[in-house]
């Protein structure tokens, strides 16, 4: 059987000067290129389809199928756009990946662009990660110098240019059509679909938009074969993925494992919840995925397992909160985030988040009444599925799930006349205090 952890993308991270071409090449990097160029483009697409790779940006759409939607009879240029706008609260995998192993992304971009017949690719990196941008810029430069990019790559006759594009601060640009707007120099507001980007994306041309981790997984699939990738994971959620543990665990960090691992297993590896505390709630894949609790420790962390538990696998951003954390405070803060990041285009998200924050803030201060919980749920009902894009949906996840699991805690705020928690006990340094 497969080992519990399966470092592939993270495997470079402890290598000396891992971000350099030399280090990457020494580990066998860029060998996938010639193999890919030796295959037909459609065969590459088939291989990715066969691997079962599903989008690692949260939605889990089969990557190979996405590529096959590109209409190859369309005379317009085709584009590959890498979504490196990692901004979902709790999600922190693409950033260390690009910092420690930027070349695997570049290699993935080359193979993927080849498959969809794109001669221009863009890596859209959120602007707030300066050093990551440096590393990716440098990797692209090195790849050009080594002949992995530019004209007639490796004598294959295939040309590719990559532009590294820095964003400027907008969570919504993680939504693929909003990202395209940003990449076209516009306000990052989602576009009407259809037409879908595969048909009319960047510059109204056929465009594939993939998450960093999805693209970075492609070289390993080509090098080792679809069956190798599919041998990991579960039936419908194949392969490996990076699981990001954060919060009240002893060893927060990145754990690359086959899909389907459980939180209990991950917590064991991470040394458990911090000393003297218990798991209270967690997010399986960022703040937009409904909260789960200790009763969900054994669900397989794959698309189906988490879905069956009423949440979503998302980006495998496992934010762990122990019993010192006030769920109302946590949810209010996330809601303030969604309000801040709402693009403003549609009414439910723009006005709904404005109102949700006020209702939650009142509850958190111990004001309002139990009826406000029903009001909150009704507000969520009027936002979920009514907004233009998924940001509005995401904003309702923490609220409705927290009321589902922690209704009494909301009510405790009312009876207590405020928040009954001591926030100081949740801090990273609280453990250093004497436990009373």
């Amino acid at each position, binding site marked *: 059987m497969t080992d519990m952890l399966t470092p592939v993308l993270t495997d470079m*991270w402890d290598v000396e000067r891992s971000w350099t071409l030399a280090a990457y090449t020494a580990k066998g990097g860029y060998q996938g290129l010639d193999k890919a160029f030796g295959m037909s483009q459609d065969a590459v697409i088939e291989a990715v*389809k066969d691997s079962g790779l599903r989008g690692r940006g949260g939605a889990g759409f089969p990557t190979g199928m996405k590529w096959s939607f590109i209409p190859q009879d369309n005379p317009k240029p085709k584009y590959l756009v890498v979504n490196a706008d990692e901004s979902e609260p709790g999600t922190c995998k693409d950033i260390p990946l690009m910092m420690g192993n930027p070349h695997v992304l570049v290699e993935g971009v080359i193979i993927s662009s080849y498959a969809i017949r794109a001669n221009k690719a863009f890596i859209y990196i959120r602007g707030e990660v300066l050093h990551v941008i440096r590393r990716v810029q440098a990797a692209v430069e090195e790849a050009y110098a080594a002949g992995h990019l530019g004209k007639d790559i490796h004598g294959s006759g295939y040309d590719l240019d990559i532009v590294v594009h820095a964003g400027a601060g907008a969570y919504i640009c993680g939504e693929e059509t909003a990202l395209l707007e940003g990449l076209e120099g516009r306000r990052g507001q989602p576009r009407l679909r259809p037409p879908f980007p595969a048909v009319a994306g960047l510059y109204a041309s056929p465009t594939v938009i993939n998450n960093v981790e999805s693209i970075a997984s492609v070289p390993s699939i080509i090098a080792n074969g679809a069956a190798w990738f599919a041998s990991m994971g579960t039936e419908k959620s194949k392969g490996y993925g990076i699981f990001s543990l954060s919060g009240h665990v002893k060893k927060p960090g990145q754990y690359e494992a086959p899909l389907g691992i459980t939180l209990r297993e991950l917590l064991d590896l991470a040394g458990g919840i911090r000393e003297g505390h218990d798991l209270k709630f967690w997010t399986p894949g960022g703040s937009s995925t409904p909260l789960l609790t200790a009763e969900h420790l054994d669900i397989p962390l794959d698309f189906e397992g988490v879905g069956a538990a009423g949440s979503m696998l998302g980006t495998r951003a496992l934010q762990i909160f122990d019993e010192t954390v006030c769920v109302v405070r946590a949810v209010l803060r996330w809601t303030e985030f969604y309000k801040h990041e709402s693009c403003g285009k549609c009414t439910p998200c723009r006005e709904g988040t404005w109102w949700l924050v006020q209702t939650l803030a009142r509850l958190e201060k111990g004001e309002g009444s139990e009826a406000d919980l029903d009001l909150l749920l009704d507000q969520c009902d009027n936002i979920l599925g009514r907004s233009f894009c998924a940001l509005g949906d995401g904003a309702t996840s923490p609220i409705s799930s927290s009321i589902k699991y922690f209704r009494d805690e909301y009510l405790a705020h009312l009876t207590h006349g405020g928040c009954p928690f001591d926030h100081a006990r949740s801090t990273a340094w609280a453990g250093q205090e004497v436990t009373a």
Partner: protein
Amino acid sequence: MALDDKTMGELREIAGRYPEKRSGLLPMLHLVQSVEGKVTPDAIEACAQILEISAAEVSGVATFYTMYKRHAVGDFHVGVCTNTLCAVMGGDQIFERLKDHLDVGNDELAEKRQGDQYSVSLEHVECNAACDFAPVVMVNWEFMDNQTPEGAVQMVEALRAGHDVKSTRGPKLCTWREAERVLAGFPDGRVDEGPSAGPASLAGLEIARERGWKAPDAAAVPVIEKGQADD
């Protein structure tokens, strides 16, 4: 005051990187920030002129993205993550402490005292994708991982005094304007500073190394039947 010829040339160069020049707008606005210290009406006009769009359209973009500033920021712009996880882990306390220490509100520039080499501004930021290093502070968009209130105060004082401060996962901190220039696509040669990964990033890998865990050996995996996984 109009932008100088060098800047205008570089703005055109950025626009030229893309199949359609308007795509250059985001990096172009980063570049004008590196020159002007913020997005000025002149800069908006210059971008509009180069991209042949209206100043209102540029303005719409410049006001949409939070990294664009319409007022001066410090040589070192300190962003404290107060999204839920970092807030819970102590980000709120760090932000409060810095506000108090610098005597500023959110997104404000602290007074440059006599003797200060550099100025500092403070802002609370949303999740910066470093949750495993919580609580996180960003200085000119470089990671300052695992911060404490006291450590953050010492850090801003060191910055004001002109001492070298190193990112926990990156190089010696450069100024905000220098950082903006890199974001515009003009590298500064600091790429090889800093580590490959921070300690938390390596948490899983270290366990795998200890226990000898690996991804399966490709040679040992049977070849997949066509279409088997195709759904």
